[in-house]
């Protein structure tokens, strides 16, 4: 067997606790590799959320804190204000970030705290067993939407990149996917760029990663990826929604 790339130093040797086919491992790897390549593992503080990725404190090789459900952007604010010389990132799921933590997310973004938010969107509540998330697709079944999500009753899926990019001072907002090798390479660039922006003190960076939950969706991993491509991407289009630092640099060049 040919090993193309070894383990990244940005992750510990701990065995990942995720279900087979879950893409959290890929997301972790992208963050770990980026920290290693940027040489910031020892300077970074990660924030583990509540949900499947709560155990992230076992996996990231940087300092990590585990915090109350939804409150990661507020904790990150306190941390960054206490240690502006450190790189602070949050790692959050869609329930954590878009439901219970909506206020903390929007206000940290509005202040453009110099932090990075990694947002893993799999349209469901994974750890608690597949309940409806704010990102659950119209008609999509969930244990708390057994007849499929009825938008007239529960609203349309919340699109956080679109919402946050409206805020004046947010720096960098991009939605990527983890659904194919090509997408993953693109996602890596976004993750690294977001961390670089925070090293540079550019303000809030936000990378949403479209992911899957084969276990709760009741599909095998490959089918889940295909399903996400067909159904999630039309609702959550990929792309850069905002890149203030790049725009400013371009304007400067034009002058």
């Amino acid at each position, binding site marked *: 067997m040919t090993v193309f790339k070894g383990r990244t130093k940005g992750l510990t040797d701990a065995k990942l606790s995720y279900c087979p086919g879950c893409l959290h491992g890929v997301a972790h790897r992208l963050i770990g590799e980026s920290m290693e390549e940027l040489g910031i593992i020892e300077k970074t503080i990660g924030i583990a959320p509540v949900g499947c990725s709560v155990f992230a404190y076992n996996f990231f090789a*940087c300092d990590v804190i585990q915090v109350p459900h939804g409150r990661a952007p507020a*904790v990150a604010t306190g941390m960054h*204000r206490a240690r502006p010389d450190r790189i602070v990132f949050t790692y959050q799921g869609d329930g954590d970030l878009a439901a219970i933590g909506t206020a903390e997310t929007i206000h940290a973004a509005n202040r453009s705290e110099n932090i990075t938010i990694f947002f893993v969107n799999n349209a469901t509540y994974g750890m608690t067993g597949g309940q409806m998330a704010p990102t659950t697709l119209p008609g999509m079944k969930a244990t708390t939407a057994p007849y499929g999500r009825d938008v007239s009753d529960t609203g349309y899926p919340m699109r956080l990149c679109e919402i946050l990019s409206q805020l004046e001072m947010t720096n960098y907002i991009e939605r990527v996917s983890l659904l194919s090798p090509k997408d993953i390479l693109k996602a890596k660039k976004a993750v690294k760029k977001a961390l670089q922006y925070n090293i540079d003190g550019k303000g809030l960076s936000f990378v949403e990663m479209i992911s899957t939950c084969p276990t709760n969706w009741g599909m095998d991993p490959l089918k889940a990826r295909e399903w996400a491509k067909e159904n999630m991407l039309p609702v959550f289009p990929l792309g850069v929604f905002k890149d203030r630092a790049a725009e400013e640099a371009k304007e400067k060049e034009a002058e």
Partner: protein
Amino acid sequence: MGKKVLMKGNEAVAEAAILAGCRHYFAYPITPQSELIEYMAKKMPLVDGTFLQAESEVAAINMVLGAAACGVRVMTSSSSPGISLKQEGISYIAASRLPAVIVNVTRGGPGLGNIAPMQCDYFQATRGGGHGDYYTPVLSPSTVQEFADMAPLAFEIAEKYLTPVMILGDGMLGQMMEPVEFPDSYAPQKDPSEWALGARRTPDDRHIINSLYIDPYVLQEKTETLFEVYEEIKKNEIRFETYNMDADAKYLIVAHGTAARVAKSAVDALKEEGVELALIRPITLWPYPYDAVAEAAKGKEKVITIELSMGQMVEDVKLAVCGECPVEFIGKAGGVVFTPEEIVSLIREKIS
């Protein structure tokens, strides 16, 4: 001591916290502690400190959690309904073994209640308040001077035992003005580099702060460790004040904070009439001075607890007295503070 200045309680505790080295403060406005947040807004930038008005009490306490995890002296303040919102974060701070100071300038409740001084959050303050098995040391000031003195004390206790500490004032103490003196120097912060995030001393010295223990036996062990710390706090940190204790008194008054001030004037007034009353004022509400109250109650005909509530601390007094003599209660809801004449006549009724 430094110079004497006339200040509101809310301002005095803020100034003392800054003098004690607190450079990070996160809060959300609420009456009757508004002067505290406004004082911090004005003063923190002048000392290169962080002042941030959070989007909610929930966010504010989690900003405190983040800053505390990085090993800085950090404080928040609020009032009753705001403290209810902060309880989730306080539970996490307690479980994560982080030092932080929370000032609670209490008001009337339940619900939105009113903004008048009450002591009806005694249960919430002294019984953990949030979810889980934990306690928060609680300091109850009775004067503006004491309110100020408790800021550095709270930081010292917080850092010694790695716990959140609450200063439980009330709207009266927050709003009233009294002369207050600040000392020239304060105890320095304890070195947090052994546990703080962002404080690696070697590449392998990775710090994790966590309150999740899926294995029930591990959680049991962690909780037991927490309670060993609480035993230490009980051993070392119980504080109380006695008044007119040497007198040949048949009755003992127990009161804390603002109620104790009124009770003291009643003790003086009744003394002039020849009625001797002893008084004990718990300064730490948790850990509670059970032994001291029991000792003070020895040989008394009656113990009278006075509170600005429908009766909460009276349960601790009963636990302390343990049936040795009757425990009576004088209380008041709504946020109206007893006048000295009123309290004298209520005490007279109880002892006649």
